[in-house]
């Protein structure tokens, strides 16, 4: 590969022996990262390994307790993000920092100083589009843009400040496969032009497909720094989780009871949709005349590019949204694991017990039996091996993976503590590390094995194929079943027959 960065050029970013402590948590102990100019550098690690903290230091959002940092060969001691931007560092966070009601140009202007120069920004966006193939309407209101387009706005913000080192925190977590590929291609070109990019990711194949170099953090330490040629999925996985454990790929057959689908004794379907049309909260019709069934003991995967109506389909099945027409038969108490955990699933400031009590709170009457709730929460925590101090700690004190385990435990248990009849899960492993992802997969499979009807949507097509017995594809509001093969599903998702 012909990189612009010669061997003797200074490193785009060089962090050595960085340590950072938050209260009682040692987020980073001994982290180092060397990013060569002209490369894409993958930064891997489990949740809580310190990836984001390290990059927040590089972007001036945090100050290290110890360690050195050089940007472009010069010492860097950033007091704020403004200092980092000044030195050509840009960062795209996992959660976008955009003002939804403002236009693209106005959002970009927010970072500036002095006089508001919207015309200059429009011109800048125009030349950005020319140089980097970046199509963005400066006058579009951000709230109306797709997630992928909003991400481009974030990128444009960084590029308008002439960023030569871009940090992207899990950029593909919110993108559809096609969009991810496009972003990664774009990153490649950006690096080939002599810039450097750090890509924080959980996805091994992504790291191996686009990155030139790979660094792995585990519990605040750099445990592996290698070029792509020297890295394999096996060595990276071992470095990330610190043992010889493998990702969960092998367990495909574990919980699936194949006989369920073939015997003639499966009775009534759990979900039955007949010519169902669903509108979103604003009244826009998102799903047209969907007809489908989900039976006991099976996992039905839903694949779709974001915004094609899968969100509404899932919520209608889960009983969170009523269809505008058609007949939809669904059980009364469907477990629902929504994609945006913090917004839709938990009370962050409240105890785990209260979060468990939240399920079914709308229909509950009379006096609450808190001691029963506490006992039930303790049982759920033990069953799922959640590392928490007990049922009375606040949800916020748990890591993302453990929060998701609690949500899953709550939704996978029927009201009486027995097996659930139906579960709908939307991107249930989003933002989780390898180990937590394996737990979620295992739980969904065993729920199906115990007789539940499980519907899983994932924006990762491989995850859909890994879990599902059957696959439904939603494209442009139309729902249809597709053979569970990568090619067929991928083509159906973009509307190609």
């Amino acid at each position: 590969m012909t990189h612009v960065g010669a061997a003797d050029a200074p490193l785009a970013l060089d962090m050595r022996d960085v340590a950072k402590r938050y209260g009682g948590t040692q987020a980073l102990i001994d982290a180092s990262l060397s990013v060569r100019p002209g490369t894409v550098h993958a930064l891997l690690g489990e949740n809580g390994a310190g990836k984001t903290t390290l990059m927040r230091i590089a972007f001036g959002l945090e100050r290290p307790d110890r360690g050195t940092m050089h940007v472009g060969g010069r010492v860097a001691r950033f007091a704020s993000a403004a200092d980092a931007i000044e030195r050509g560092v840009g960062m795209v966070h996992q959660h976008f920092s955009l003002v939804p009601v403002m236009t693209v140009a106005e959002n970009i202007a927010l970072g500036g100083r002095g006089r508001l120069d919207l015309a200059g920004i429009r011109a800048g966006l125009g030349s950005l589009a020319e140089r980097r193939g970046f199509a963005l309407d400066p006058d579009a209101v951000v709230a109306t843009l797709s997630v992928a387009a909003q991400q481009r706005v974030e990128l444009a913000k960084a590029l308008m400040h002439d960023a030569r080192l871009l940090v992207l925190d899990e950029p593909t977590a919110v993108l559809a496969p096609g969009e991810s590929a496009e972003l990664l291609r774009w990153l490649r070109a950006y690096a080939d032009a002599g810039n450097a990019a750090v890509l924080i990711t959980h996805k091994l194949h992504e790291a191996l497909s686009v990155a030139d170099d790979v660094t792995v953090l585990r519990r605040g330490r750099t445990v592996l720094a290698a070029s792509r040629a020297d890295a394999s999925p096996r060595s990276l996985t071992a470095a990330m989780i610190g043992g010889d454990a493998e990702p969960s790929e092998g367990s495909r057959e574990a919980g699936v009871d194949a006989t369920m689908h073939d015997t003639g004794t499966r009775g009534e379907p759990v979900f039955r949709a007949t010519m169902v049309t669903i509108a979103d909260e604003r009244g826009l019709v998102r799903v047209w005349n969907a007809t489908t069934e989900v039976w006991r003991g099976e996992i039905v995967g839903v694949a779709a590019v974001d915004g094609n109506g899968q969100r509404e389909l899932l919520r209608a099945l889960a009983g969170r949204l009523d269809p505008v027409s058609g007949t939809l038969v669904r059980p009364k108490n469907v477990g629902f694991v929504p994609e945006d955990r913090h917004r839709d699933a938990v009370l962050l400031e409240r105890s785990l017990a209260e979060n468990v009590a939240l399920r079914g709170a709308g229909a509950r009457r009379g006096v609450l039996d808190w001691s029963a709730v506490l006992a039930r929460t303790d049982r759920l925590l033990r069953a799922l091996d959640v590392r928490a101090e007990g049922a009375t700690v606040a949800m916020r004190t748990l890591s993302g993976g453990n929060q998701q385990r609690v949500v899953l435990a709550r939704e996978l248990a029927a009201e009486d503590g027995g097996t659930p009849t139906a579960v709908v899960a939307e991107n249930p492993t989003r933002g989780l590390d390898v180990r937590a992802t394996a737990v979620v997969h295992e739980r969904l499979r065993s729920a199906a094995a115990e007789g539940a009807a499980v519907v899983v949507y994932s924006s990762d097509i491989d995850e859909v194929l890994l879990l599902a017995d059957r696959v439904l594809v939603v494209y442009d509001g139309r729902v249809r079943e597709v053979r569970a093969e990568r090619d067929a599903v991928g083509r159906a998702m973009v509307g190609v027959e």
Partner: protein
Amino acid sequence: MSATPRRRRTRLVLSQIALAALALVAIVAATAFLLLVGGYSVRDGLVALWSGSLGSWYAITSATLVRAVPLLCTGVAVAIAFRAGVFNIGAEGQLLVGAAAATAVSLATPLVAWSGGVTIILALAAAAVAGGLWAGVAAVLRARFGVLEVISTIMLNFVAVHFVSYLVRGPVQEPTHAYPQSATIAESLHLPRLPGAGRLHAGLLLAIAITAVSGWVVRRTAAGFRLMAVGENPDAAASAGQIDVGRTTTRAFLASGALAGLAGGIELLGVTFALYENLSPGYGFTAIAVALLAGLDPWRVLPTAVLFGALEAGAGAMQRDAGIPSTLVTVIEAALILAAVTVQALRLGRRPNPGRASIAAEP
């Protein structure tokens, strides 16, 4: 953390007692400082503050607790609304229309020998309904048109103040038309005085009962849980809890208004016996401080309502006996609110903090 829940709870209770003691010391110190700066006699001021609020049985009952009664009702009203994420700043207005409704019922009901008790109940019920309806205006504006209740309830306070002004100069003015106030209600409609407690009336018992029941509903019932969930995170309440968020907030709003209206009814039948302007020295506003200082927990409103009742009573005495403007105490009250809100913010900021996580932590 290794402490058992019980030890942790004991520690929590101890720390709260310590905090309360600290607050009292701070109040005294701040008052002394302000007296000094204002050029008044520190000794005279503090003596008046003490003797007017807690210095004698008469002061405790007839001054402090009499003022604590409306603060208790409105404090619980505000706590319930705030818990559900409804920022009802309109307790003052709701209290006033409650008092007006109680006046109307009291004056309009023909008196017969046995009717006193029935009329009292009718008047109090009317006060609660009026307060609820007054809040209902803001509730409908919020539910239908998305009007912020902070703004609508403040505006409705002004409407209520002027409505009372109109009433006492027009429809319900006393027969001689000399004073801007209503006729005095019949003696048989006065809330009974508590024996041996001066001006303190049975409204105190009613207020305590309301507080006890509200606290129980909030902590122990499914409805109380919904209030909390909706206030904490309406999206999760709707999605994970399948709670009707609109209905829950509207109910909290109406209940809050009804309790504030009831406070007005109790005040009229127990203390003022007639409707007039400035019937409330801002109880509905002080209630916000009372509720915030109590952490929006109805049971903890009881001590904070008494504290603010004592401050108001002491302030009156300072003005009367030592010629010190009572606004000085208002400054102290404001400082207290700022301190309480700051402490709360600091606690929230110091995460993770398992100690204050829950109501479920107190089985």
